[in-house]
């Protein structure tokens, strides 16, 4: 592993077509990462992802689609200055690689650019997790609340 790159692999019990849709479409992205996602799933499309809901508190982060090869590869750059084209050196680069495996899909994620961008960008990455951490906190509560509500009927 090159120092400055994050690599993860996870097995998903779903077809590559389904997994591709979940990792690439803005409506699904909003379910597992930012609050809002605005871009087209075509190479070169520029847009943004938004963390937080309330006007001034919301962080709008530039997002540029790099590669779209369904159902194998989806990659994008993010965190570049909104008025600059996304290139190596001014952005973090995320790639999803999908490989059919048995009855499911092996999903590999790589994020690089930390060494070139400087380490402070990693701090930003952490900030953008707030929304996500919130869901991790609230979702189990919501589930147990629904379960309790059913019992009470």
């Amino acid at each position, binding site marked *: 592993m090159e*120092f*400055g790159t*994050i690599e*993860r692999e*996870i097995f*998903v*019990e*779903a*077809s590559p077509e*389904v*997994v591709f*849709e*979940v*990792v690439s479409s803005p409506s*699904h992205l909003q*379910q*597992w*990462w930012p609050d809002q996602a605005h871009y087209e799933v075509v190479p070169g499309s520029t847009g943004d992802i938004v963390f937080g809901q309330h006007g001034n508190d919301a962080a709008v982060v530039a997002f540029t689609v790099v590669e779209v090869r369904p159902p194998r590869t989806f990659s994008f750059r993010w965190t570049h200055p909104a008025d600059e084209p996304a290139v190596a050196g001014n952005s973090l680069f995320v790639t999803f690689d999908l490989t059919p495996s048995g009855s499911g*899909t092996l*999903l590999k*994620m790589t*994020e690089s650019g*930390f*060494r*070139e*961008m*400087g*380490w402070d960008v*990693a*701090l930003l*990455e*952490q900030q953008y*997790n707030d929304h*996500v*951490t919130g*869901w*991790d906190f609230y979702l189990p509560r919501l589930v147990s609340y629904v379960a309790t509500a059913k019992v009470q009927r």
Partner: protein
Amino acid sequence: MVDLLLADGGGTATTLSDQLPVTRQAVAKHLAVLDRVALVRVTPIGREKRYRVDEAQLARAVTQLTAVGSAWDARLQRIKRIAESIQQTKKH
């Protein structure tokens, strides 16, 4: 390269390229990147520059990367959950 700098307690582009299968020029370029993100400290010796790893900065960088890694673990778990529930719905 960071490993070599840590093991030797520092080095120059020349001493490092002697131990690596790359040119002195490539090493110097890589060192410049490490310098820009403050992972190394530079001391000029004559016409060469001596580099050593800033261990506090390195530790900080590793901590931050680890945190980003855990964030991705959580994101991927959610991707898995969403995709698997869509797949289940399709079967029925």
